């Protein structure tokens, strides 16, 4: 501005307001920015448009309704299979219906519709539980099949929902029910092998459980043998009018329980069966006086202590007196008998004399060593503990020698008897398949005593006077001992109610399996001329069982077995294997 001018040129100031000079290139910059913004907006809208077009062309993705709780609740359990891998128990997904009383709109309508579809529900009880609006979760019906669940779903009632639960399913029905046990409504084990699974931590919460990679639990049972034993026992039950029966097939070398039957059976699919005392597992949950089969142990006791040999003669003509009781023989021979004959004619007096020779102390110690006096366990739980006499005097020594006064679970007795015949090695019965060769067992009797007992037991079946004649199964060399025990009743023993049992083993010269058959309260029939002793009922049932199960167990008839062994490359190595051993 020129100071000489005096007056500032106002117009100039108006016309040219003071502003910063425009930098070259700014116009271009603005345009670029606008363009850029435009591009971004275009891209964004373009993306939205493209997505819309794509969705319009593709159509909406199919809607999937996912249940809030799709994975099963409750407990997942491993499958149970038999020794050959045949399925005995498995988990099955089922639908369980629940209600949320707060959401339920019309109580009457809901109850009416639901009970129409599920007639098993009680409308009055349902009303009572659903009327309580403070609750948010009430089970209505658990374990529905897919069809029922679908029908309820289609009712479209608000406030009702389903949860997938796992339910135990036993495809074989009552077969081996006592061994398997049962589970609760939440799939927890209540008894038997099922309870073992819980105790061992093999049952796991279903959520996250990998149901398909879990290994199955393999039992020692063979379904085929189990069925054959059950069938033959059922036949025996009908034929002899017995009220209950027990059958056991025990591997004499490993202690594996190949078949364990107690009739009447329980159906593991119905857990309530466990509570029925009539359906008790008589093999493990009850103790019984088994009668003359105990003479095996009385003779083993005397042989073991070197008191007698099989040819020692005992004068059994006079009955034994214990206080006011007189102990007599059922088949009195009226002459002195050898130890062999004491066994053959099942002489109570002879067995009592042998036990007296050994004495109470040694008898008790011997039975204890065999494992007959201590409580026993299997994987399925505790076996009923032995009922020992309150005092063990002369009277008890005599009566225990012929099987009265000491009640044990049949399984425990069979395990002890197996040790006596298998060469003298103590066995621990197991329901699970032994993966490896059995460890060295404790020796309870000498090899020589065991061999003598095997000779006697075979004689009991082959000798014309033997009580076990009808147990002979052609070709398999069955041996054994009969026992007929009167059942204790009010005020003493009941003569007409007996437990008849047959403790057997086959093939007798080198037993592979020990069997026990017991019939409770058999009746006399025309065929048995009214007799109810074990020789006419339990023994023939054993024969039929052995005939059926020996081929299943790969036991060859002796004529073939001898031939196979003669050709075997090395002694002891089986030339051809049983089917189940080949696996």
């Amino acid at each position, binding site marked *: 501005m020129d100071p000489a001018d005096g007056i500032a040129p106002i117009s100039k100031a108006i016309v040219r307001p003071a502003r910063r000079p425009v930098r070259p290139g700014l116009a271009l910059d603005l345009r*670029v920015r606008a363009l*850029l913004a435009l591009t*971004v907006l275009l*891209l964004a809208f373009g*993306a939205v448009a493209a997505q819309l077009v794509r969705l319009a062309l593709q159509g909406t*993705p199919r809607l*999937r309704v*996912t249940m809030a709780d*799709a*994975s099963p609740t409750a407990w997942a359990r491993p499958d149970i299979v038999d020794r050959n891998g*045949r*399925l*005995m128990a*498995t*988990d*099955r*997904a089922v639908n369980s219906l629940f209600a949320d009383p707060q959401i339920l709109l019309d109580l009457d309508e809901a109850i009416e519709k639901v009970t129409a579809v599920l007639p098993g529900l009680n409308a009055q009880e349902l009303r009572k539980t659903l009327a309580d609006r403070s609750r948010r979760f009430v089970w209505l019906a658990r374990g529905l099949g897919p069809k029922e669940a679908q029908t309820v779903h289609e009712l479209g009632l608000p406030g009702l929902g389903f949860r997938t639960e796992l339910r135990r*399913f036993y*495809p*074989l*029905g009552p*077969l081996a029910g006592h061994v398997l046990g049962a589970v609760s409504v939440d799939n927890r084990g209540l008894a038997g092998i099922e309870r073992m699974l819980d105790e061992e931590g093999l049952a796991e919460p279903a959520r996250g459980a990998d*149901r*398909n990679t879990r290994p199955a639990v393999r039992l020692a049972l063979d*379904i*085929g043998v189990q*069925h*054959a034993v059950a*069938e033959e026992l059922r036949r025996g039950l009908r034929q002899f009018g017995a009220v209950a029966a027990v059958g056991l097939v025990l591997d004499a070398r490993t202690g594996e329980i190949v078949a364990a039957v107690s009739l009447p059976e329980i159906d593991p699919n119905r857990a309530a069966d466990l509570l029925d005392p009539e359906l008790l597992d008589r093999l493990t949950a009850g103790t019984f006086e088994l009668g003359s089969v105990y003479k095996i142990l009385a003779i083993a006791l005397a042989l073991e202590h070197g008191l007698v040999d099989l040819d020692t003669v005992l004068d059994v003509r006079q009955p034994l007196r214990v206080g006011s009781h007189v102990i007599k023989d059922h088949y009195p021979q009226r002459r002195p008998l050898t130890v062999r004959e004491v066994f053959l004619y099942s002489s109570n007096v002879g067995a009592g004399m042998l036990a007296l020779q050994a004495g109470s102390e040694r008898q008790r110690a011997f039975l204890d060593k065999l494992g007959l006096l201590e409580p026993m366990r299997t994987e399925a739980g505790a076996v009923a503990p032995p009922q020992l006499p309150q005092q063990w005097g002369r009277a008890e020594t005599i009566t225990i020698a012929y099987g009265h006064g000491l009640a044990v679970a049949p399984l425990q007795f069979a395990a002890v008897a197996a040790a006596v015949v298998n060469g003298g090695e103590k066995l621990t019965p197991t329901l699970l398949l032994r993966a490896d060769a059995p460890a060295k067992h404790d020796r309870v009797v000498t090899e020589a005593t065991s061999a003598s007992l095997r000779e006697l037991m075979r004689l009991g079946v082959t000798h014309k006077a033997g009580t076990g004649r009808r147990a002979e*199964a*052609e*070709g*398999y060399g069955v041996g054994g001992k009969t026992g007929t025990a009167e059942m204790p009743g009010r005020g003493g023993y009941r003569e007409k109610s007996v437990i008849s049992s047959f403790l057997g083993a086959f093939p007798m010269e080198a037993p592979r399996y020990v069997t026990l058959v017991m019939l409770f309260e058999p009746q006399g029939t025309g065929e048995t001329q009214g007799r109810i002793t074990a020789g006419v009922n339990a023994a023939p049932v054993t024969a039929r069982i052995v*005939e*059926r199960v*020996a*081929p299943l167990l790969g036991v*060859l*008839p002796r*004529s*073939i077995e001898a*031939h196979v062994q003669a050709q075997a490359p090395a002694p002891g190595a089986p030339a051809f294997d049983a089917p189940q051993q080949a696996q």
Partner: protein
Amino acid sequence: MHRTLNVILLLLALASAFAVYVLKYDTRRMEARVQGLERTVDKLEGEIARLKGEHAHLARPERIEPMARALGLASIGPRQYLRVGASPPAVAEASAQAATQR
């Protein structure tokens, strides 16, 4: 020079944002697919378990035995075992025993 670089970087940022969006969308889609497949696997596994149970139920000895008997089958008898190279009379006896068992 800087401007060009900025423009390129901006474009790159936009492009990667778009790529991330696409990836995320794809991931969601795949997740849904995985869930669907898992559901299918679950369903099929349940089905397998059911069928195994059904098979065991149908093959239970209690049901098979009467059928086998109706077909004339029986347990193998001790005389039906023969040595390899058994004499013809022994073979005849074994088959006779098999016939009587029916």
